[in-house]
C-alpha cells in the first residue's frame, strides 16, 4: 500500500512540474531560437507585447482589434505588438489572419516549441516584456474593455521605465 502511495505521489509531482513556464520578472525567451516563422522585428530597447493566439479561440479573435489599436497608439513611443500564432496547421492561421489583417507583426509557432517553453495558462495570453527583456506583466484571457484598460496601464508604466 505504501509503495502505491509513493508511486501516486511521484506521478503527481512529475505531472505538476512538467514543462517550464515563463513567469513575471523572468527573461522572456527569444522566439528566433525556437524555429518560429514570420518576420520578427528588432525588439532591442523596446517594450514588446507578445500575444499568444490560436485560430480556434474566440476571445483571441476579439483581442486582435484591441491590440491593434494599442499598437497604433503606442508604436511611436516604442511599443511593438507581436502576435504569436500557435496553430499546428499553417492553413488555420492564414484563414484567421485573412479575416482580421492586423497591422502589427505576427510570427508562427507551428511546431509549438516556443509556446511550450513560455507556457501560457490559456488562450489568449499576453506577455508584456520591458525594455530590459524581462516579463513585466502577464494577462491570461481577454475580457474586452477591462483587459484593454489593464494592459494599457501596464504598457504606460513599462514605456516610462
Amino acid at each position, binding site marked *: 500500500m505504501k*509503495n502505491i502511495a509513493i*508511486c501516486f505521489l511521484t*506521478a503527481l509531482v512529475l505531472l505538476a512540474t*512538467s514543462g517550464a513556464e515563463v513567469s513575471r520578472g523572468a527573461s522572456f525567451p527569444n522566439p528566433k531560437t525556437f524555429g518560429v516563422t514570420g518576420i520578427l522585428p528588432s525588439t532591442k530597447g523596446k517594450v514588446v507585447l507578445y500575444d499568444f493566439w490560436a485560430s*480556434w479561440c474566440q476571445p*483571441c479573435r476579439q483581442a486582435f482589434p484591441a491590440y491593434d489599436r494599442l499598437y497604433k497608439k503606442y508604436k511611436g513611443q516604442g511599443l511593438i505588438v507581436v502576435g504569436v500564432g500557435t496553430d499546428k496547421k499553417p492553413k488555420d492561421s492564414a484563414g484567421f489572419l485573412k479575416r482580421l489583417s492586423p497591422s502589427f507583426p505576427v510570427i508562427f509557432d507551428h511546431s509549438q516549441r516556443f509556446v511550450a517553453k513560455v507556457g501560457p*495558462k490559456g*488562450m489568449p495570453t499576453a506577455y508584456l516584456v520591458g525594455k530590459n527583456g524581462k516579463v513585466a506583466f502577464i494577462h491570461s484571457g481577454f475580457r474586452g474593455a477591462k483587459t484593454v484598460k489593464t494592459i494599457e496601464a501596464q504598457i504606460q508604466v513599462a514605456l516610462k521605465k
Partner: protein
Amino acid sequence: MKPYFLLVTLFAFTSCGKVAPWERANLARKAMAPDRNPLGEAMADHMYFSREGSLGGKGVGGGGCGCN
C-alpha cells in the same frame, strides 16, 4: 509479484496527461460542445420535465478550450 504490481501502476499513470491550452483545438470544436443543438436540448428538457418531472442539473462550463 510486488515489482510487477508497481510496474503496472506506473504504466497506468502514464495515461494521465495535461492537455496544454495551445493543444485544445479539438476540444474547442463545435462538436465537443455539450449544447451544440440548443433547440434539440430545449425539446429534450421539455420531454424530461413533462414525463419525469426532472429538469436541469447538467450544466458544464464550456468544452474545455481554456479560453478565458
